[in-house]
């Protein structure tokens, strides 16, 4: 589904990614871990199409197309979803309005009829219950005055509505208490199907107790320095990044 080859990117002339290679197949969940500043969030942002990065080399193919050539909205309509580390607030725009606009943008792209207000309301209320959220948040302005945990739940709510093909979760677990973490994980796990793939960017093994990854990669200094199965995350939890030596240790220190 996703093939990243020798991806190099810089911001303001400073190299952040220095040759990433990664293959993600349908049905797989990949966790990307690594010390602060290793480029994890940058990778997620670049895949979603955020401005401000210069791609200096490499390619990204998603379902056979050149992902980097698409503007962010077309990536989204093609099934790429980024759950933001810091979801933005949009004063005056109600959450339900944004959700409906997003769902219908995707449906238009897929060539299926847009949902009318009644059908959409039924759908969204169902998902709100599933995410154990209060219905009143549908009518509040997008993320305005939401707590950190509410914002993250709201991201996953959007994800369950948009049913992406490739989900990128950027530190969705940071700032969550244990109950919220369970709900968020429940939302993510509900979307695990053989047709979908996910990339979880995280600092902590804790999330992986709830969402079991197929592969774990350690990103350090803009490169993937080690890949393994779920057990790699446990190893990192015990020993930190120092035992990996080289760049991983260098950046960690």
């Amino acid at each position, binding site marked *: 589904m996703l093939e990243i080859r020798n991806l190099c990117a810089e911001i303001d002339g400073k190299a952040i990614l220095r040759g990433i290679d990664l293959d993600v197949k349908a049905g797989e969940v990949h966790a990307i871990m690594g010390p602060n500043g290793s480029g994890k969030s940058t990778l997620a942002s670049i895949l*979603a*199409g*955020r*401005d*401000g990065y210069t791609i200096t080399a490499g390619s990204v193919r998603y379902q056979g197309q050149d992902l980097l050539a698409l*503007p*962010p*909205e077309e*990536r*989204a*309509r093609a099934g790429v*979803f*980024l759950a*933001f580390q810091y*979801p*933005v607030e*949009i*004063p*005056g*725009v*109600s959450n339900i*309005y*944004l959700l409906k*606009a*997003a769902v219908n*943008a*995707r449906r238009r*792209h897929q060539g299926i009829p847009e949902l009318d207000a009644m059908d959409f309301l039924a759908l969204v209320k169902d998902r709100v219950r599933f995410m154990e959220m209060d219905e009143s948040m549908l009518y509040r*302005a997008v993320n305005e005055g939401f707590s950190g945990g509410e914002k993250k739940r709201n991201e996953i709510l*959007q994800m369950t509505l*948009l049913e992406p093909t490739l989900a990128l979760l950027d530190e969705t677990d940071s700032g969550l208490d244990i109950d919220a973490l369970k709900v968020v994980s429940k939302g993510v796990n509900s979307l695990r199907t053989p047709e979908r793939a996910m990339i979880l960017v995280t600092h902590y093994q804790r999330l992986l107790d709830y969402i079991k990854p197929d592969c774990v990669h350690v990103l350090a200094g803009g490169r993937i320095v080690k890949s393994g199965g779920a057990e790699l995350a446990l190893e990192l939890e015990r020993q930190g990044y120092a035992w990996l030596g080289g760049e991983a240790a260098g950046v960690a220190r």
Partner: protein
Amino acid sequence: MSQSQTTLDEIIGKDYEHGFVTSVEMDVIPRGLSEDVVRLISAKKNEPEWLLEWRLAAYRHWLTMTPPQWASVHHAPIDFQDIIYYAAPRSQNDGPKSLDEVDPELLKTYDKLGIPLHERAILAGVAVDAVFDSVSVATTFKDKLAEVGIIFGSFSEAVQHHPDLVRQYLGSVVPVGDNYYAALNSAVFSDGSFCYIPPGVRCPMELSTYFRINARNTGQFERTLIVADAGAYVSYLEGCTAPMRDENQLHAAVVELVALERAQIKYSTVQNWYPGDKEGRGGIYNFVTKRGECRGDHAKISWTQVETGSAITWKYPSVVLKGDHSIGEFYSVALTNHRQQADTGTKMIHLGRNTRSTIVSKGISAGHGQQAYRGLVRVAKSAVGARNYTQCDSLLLGDRCQAHTFPYIEVKQPQATVEHEASTSRISEDQLFFCRSRGLSPEDAVSMIVNGFCKEVFKELPMEFAVEAQKLLGVSLEGSVG
């Protein structure tokens, strides 16, 4: 970064839609202004002597005045001798007896603008008085309104058929010498709308006027007077467009509202005069005086305006709260894009006891747009228990536009409550990226964020107008961020 900016530049750069010119034969007087011109206009309209004297008094007063310099707008001095003060479609000379006699070209113009004249009016349920350059062309629904005693039609007709009412109220809210442009208007106004709602009558439909400047080098000086007698209610809509011209055209209107005891007037404007091109050539100078007076106790006047057009807007719809317990409201969305300038706001003058006023102003600046909110809240010693709430928000798109806020507060009554809140924000790249990563196009994202910003004002507009305003805002923003 650059990619989204380019896209936003495209959004903000769309062309003005109403820029066509209608070719009808015009009755035009030579350019320039003098007592003779004032007399000529008055004679063409077959006005009574008192009105001519009123105009001449205004003209003589105007000669002693100088244009106001305090507004935060910049333009070359206006040559008032280079303006044509009267232009009317030729067919008006004989006076159309019904819509059938109105020049078909003219009706086509209104069709293009989507104004509901004729049967379309019936479908839309809106009574329209359309003002084309200097004269009022047609009024729909007049008979139906007359059944409940409502007088609605052109100002000229009102002068002929209801001279006493006109004489009683004309200039009673905005005196001839009120300000430079109001004095000019009083001297040369050519037409406009007049509306009188008798006591206890709730106007059964939205009343509407559509203004259009068509002829070259003309000014449009319309005069609107609305009187709601005791216990009456009326909702009035006003819309404006003009063709694209390279030179600037002056629009100096005066609107007077009078609300007697327990009367309510709701006045909504969607102003989309030609704003000039992207470099700031051409466009309408919109120098307008709008004021309402709550003359009786428990009266209420509410202004709602969406200002997206004009090269320069200079406009302060105000309310004088004379009656005890009277209420004044001002809801405004003003948008400046490209080289547009707007200095707009309101005045709330509290004189009566327990008077209340609410001001919600939303300013949006894009491109090189310049915008100022200028508001005065004055609470006189007599206004025991007066309250005001003001909220003033600015939204910036891009980094070359400006927003300023000039709130003036004068309180002479120690028990008054006056609140003022202000904020300035900009549409951030993060907000745009967030919306786009949910599948929204940049245009839809900007429009959604801007509409969210304006929501408090749009909800005050009548339904049809709210939809139009939202669309207009989308169009006016096309090509705006960068």
